[in-house]
């Protein structure tokens, strides 16, 4: 579809050419009775950006996605997609989008290729366009040899790729991905990330929710960390890590009984000590040096590990909890 030249053109040029935000949310709020799922969040997404919502289950990510996708009405606040309000212009907004929902809702009784064609019909696209486009998307999703299979014969990863292919049938400029890789094995996740990265290179604006920090780090130019319906922090993965964590982390395990009491003995090592039920984290710019200090105090951990800080650490710092419980 895109050769190298056009691809690099669209990557470098899309942002400068269209600096206007394609999505603007202002004080976006959604309540279900007593429960406030989304509690006044504001953000802007410029064209071509890959924007993430990172947070644990129940943080309000999916609810936000449904409001952007024009399938759930907000309780208050403002929301604009391509300059349109999804509440009053639902069909027009949805015509701009590709949507990959959290749960696959493919037509299991139809063949793989037919799923793409039927979905394209919802946009009023003619078969003369849909037939070659379906083949092209099957190629993109690495499902060409499955074109005539029934959907229920596909693996989880294949279904996910088919759902992504389906979301691209109308050539959307904005793609909404709600936990695109949840439940997939590592290999299937990597294939999917690769496909999403290609779309990003083609200038498609990606909006994705995830509770996997590595996914957010791989795919997002910028993200918001969401907890209990509120934005806790915003920035690029690197800047968030810089701001809320140290360069390195020393992970120590002393066994479940000692972990809880060892914190006092470790005080003063590194910038901050975080005690979790299964391990102790020491935040330091030089992890090896911190480990030497631990040894100098004659504390003998069962295991020790020095690693780079990740978004997981950012989340822990911001909320005092882990992302994936």
């Amino acid at each position: 579809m895109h050769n190298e030249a056009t691809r690099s053109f669209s990557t470098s040029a899309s942002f400068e050419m269209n600096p206007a935000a394609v999505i603007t949310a202002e004080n976006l709020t959604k309540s279900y009775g007593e429960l406030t799922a989304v509690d006044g969040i504001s953000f802007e997404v410029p064209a071509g950006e890959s924007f993430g919502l990172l947070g644990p289950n129940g943080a309000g990510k999916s609810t936000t996605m449904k409001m952007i996708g024009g399938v759930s009405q907000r309780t208050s606040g403002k929301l604009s997609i391509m300059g349109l309000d999804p509440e009053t212009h639902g069909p027009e907004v949805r015509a701009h989008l590709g949507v990959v929902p959290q749960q696959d809702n493919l037509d299991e009784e139809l063949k793989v290729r037919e799923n793409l064609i039927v979905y394209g019909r919802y946009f009023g696209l003619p078969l003369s366009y849909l037939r070659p486009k379906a083949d092209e998307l099957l190629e993109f999703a690495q499902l060409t040899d499955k074109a005539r299979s029934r959907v229920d014969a596909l693996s989880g990863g294949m279904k996910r790729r088919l759902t992504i292919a389906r979301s691209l049938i109308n050539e959307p400029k904005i793609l909404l991905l709600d936990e695109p890789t949840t439940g997939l094995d590592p290999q299937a996740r990597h294939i999917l990330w690769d496909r999403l990265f290609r779309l990003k290179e083609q200038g498609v604006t990606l909006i994705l929710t995830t509770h996997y920090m590595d996914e957010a780090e791989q795919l997002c130019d910028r993200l918001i960390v969401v907890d209990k319906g509120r934005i806790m922090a915003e920035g690029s993965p690197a800047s968030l890590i810089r701001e809320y964590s140290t360069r390195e982390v020393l992970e120590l395990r002393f066994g479940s009984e000692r972990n809880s009491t060892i914190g006092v003995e470790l005080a003063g090592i590194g910038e901050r000590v975080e005690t979790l039920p299964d391990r102790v984290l020491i935040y330091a710019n030089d992890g090896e040096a911190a480990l030497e200090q631990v040894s100098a105090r004659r504390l003998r951990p069962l295991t020790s590990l020095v690693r780079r800080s990740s978004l997981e650490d950012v989340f822990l710092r911001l909320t005092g909890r882990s992302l994936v419980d």
Partner: protein
Amino acid sequence: MISAHSPAVSARRAKRWGSFFYAEQVLRVMRGYGWSVFLYSVGQPVAYLFAMGIGLASLVDANSGAVFGGVNYLTFIAPALLVSSAVMTASGDFSYPIMDGFKWRRVFYGPHASPLVPQQIAAGHIMASALKFLVQSVVYFAIVAMFGASPSPWGWVSAIVATVAGLSFGLPLMAYASTITKDSGQFALVQRFIVVPLFLFSGTFFPLDSLPLGVRWIGWISPVWHGTQLGRVFTYGLEESPLLMLAHVLFLVGAAAAGWTLTRRQFARRMGA
């Protein structure tokens, strides 16, 4: 390389034709089950036609005299089986597939993310099913006519009556089905305690007025009875008063319209909020 038309065009087309786009999806799915659909919806009533209209009829016709309005038993029950068959198909099409769409395989939520609106998804499902009732009724009527059980030249209208009767039973059921969030066997109960009694006590195998008054009301509120009586008017010229004819038509159309309205509202509520 052709590319997709603009989102504005997509939205405009979806607004105008969206129901048809969804109906197309439902028909494609049905096509995958072509033979079983055909056997269920045509084969079953034809089996009844043989058993009752030819087997049982040989006894009935010898003993009944004028009970069946001067026509033979086969002619008497043919329109009733036609209508019952559409109603039974409707009881399948407007129950489990609705649960499937909202809950099991969530097929309604795919198009929901497209420019279609929930009311169009409901309408598409209804239109595709209506077409199926019509095709099955026409095929079944052709078989009835081959048996010579539709002496009137207006007999074919009974296929349309059956389609409407199917909707007048099916759409209120669809409205109910779209409110269900947890399957605890409701549809099996509908089948046993609503569909079967309606089939048996709607003047299907014997005139409604041969029943005691205590159960005759089942016929009055039954789309099967209203449809069957209308069908008989068209296939063999049953004499029905104009007032009663009007009542039949109003009941069938009214129940279908009410069901459709409630269904639209429920679909919008369930997929919109």
